């Protein structure tokens, strides 16, 4: 688990909101124009700082939704009791200014050729799909042919983020949904929380030496990571990123 030492100072930089796109009724993607953005790796996050006209500031971290080399974007889910996410998903519009610093985090990242092992298993709960989408886009952007299975758990079809993009996944990327609360009529797919049986059906067999990235709410990550270990994945091959509903 050795990392690459990063010892440069991360400074706050002014970002200008560019285009915004509503992904679902609760989720919005915002493109951020940051003149001196140093670049990032797929899976990393950044810090956002908002300043009110009375000087009050609030900071939060968000996963980066774009691949390295693409225009910088974040995808934000609105938490009703939050302070920053309602602003980003409802108020912010093109031309508004905020501050960013990053990129942050170096473990939950994927780069082509960085892993000598087998295929990728990506498991997303809700907006945990955001950094995994950056990984899928980076795979396409770099021409990597590593096989990918994405297991994406969502409350309902309306809550699926990036649905149009994931409807036609790139060659070698297989997307499996489970819709845990409500399903469209005639839904043929999974309709329950991820469990061992689902993982056994969807996840690459451990013998193929897969590398897993699991991102979502704590309960989702706990259960998926434990399930993968139960299926024989070494703990060191299961990278996790968790978020709680902490009022972001």
């Amino acid at each position: 688990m050795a990392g690459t030492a990063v010892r440069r100072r991360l400074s706050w930089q002014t970002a200008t909101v560019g285009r915004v796109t509503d992904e679902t009724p609760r989720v919005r993607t915002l493109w951020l124009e940051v003149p001196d953005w140093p670049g990032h790796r797929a899976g990393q996050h950044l810090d956002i700082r908002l300043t009110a006209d009375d000087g009050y500031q609030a900071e939060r971290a968000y996963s980066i939704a774009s691949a390295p080399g693409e225009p910088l974007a974040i995808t934000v889910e609105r938490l009703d009791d939050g302070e920053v996410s309602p602003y980003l998903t409802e108020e912010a519009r093109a031309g508004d200014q905020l501050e960013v610093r990053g990129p942050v985090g170096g473990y939950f990242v994927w780069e082509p050729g960085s892993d000598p092992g087998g295929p990728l298993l990506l498991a997303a709960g809700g907006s945990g799909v955001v950094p995994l989408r950056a990984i899928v886009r980076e795979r396409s952007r770099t021409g990597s042919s590593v096989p990918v299975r994405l297991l994406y758990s969502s409350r309902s079809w309306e809550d699926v983020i990036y649905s149009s993009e994931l409807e036609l996944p790139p060659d070698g990327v297989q997307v499996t949904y489970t819709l845990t609360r409500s399903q469209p009529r005639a839904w043929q797919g999974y309709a329950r929380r991820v469990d061992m049986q689902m993982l056994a059906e969807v996840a690459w067999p451990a013998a193929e030496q897969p590398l897993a990235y699991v991102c979502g709410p704590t309960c989702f990550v706990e259960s998926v990571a434990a399930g993968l270990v139960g299926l024989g994945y070494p703990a060191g091959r299961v990278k996790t990123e968790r978020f709680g509903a902490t009022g972001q």
Partner: protein
Amino acid sequence: MSPVSRGFRRKREAAPADRVPPGQYVTKDFPVLSAGPTPHTPLPQWTFSISGGHQPVSWTWEEFRALPTETLTTDIHCVTRWSKLDTSWEGVSLDVLLAAVEYDARYVLAFSDGGYTTNLPVADLLGGKAWVAFGYGGGPLGAEHGGPARLLVPHLYFWKSAKWVRGLQLRDTDVPGFWENYGYHLYGDPWREQRYAGD
């Protein structure tokens, strides 16, 4: 000078500035952040060891639980910006554990099940500032929060309070641990907002 984000307003009550470090907000949840699956080491196989002193020392779970314990109520501060006030813990003081060893080292690298490590100055573990905690909120410490036992060093960002801790390696030099290797601050004082290297 930070630019004003048009239309942004405070929605939360002001956090008490003597309790909540800069850039933090108060949560009532207890969020979980860890880099991999939650390990589950059976207690008969659990040990806590300190190496790098004049002689190695190790406790089984039974021996560890026979040590004098303390209960404490403290605030904790995660580098991801949540702070949780008045959390209650039970644990063994690092003063007790380190008193069992003779050493000259000035730093430790704490290590955990699952391969996690974090570095701390010895001085930050002494003087009633750090514990190996096995109880939380009046009950046992849950596995997702680092049980059976975690380091508790509440005056530093919470990634220094290594979950599933299994021991300390005493060292003459300060070497970065897991998150420190990925660009997080070597020391991590929340009151000085030492989140990342160079802060």
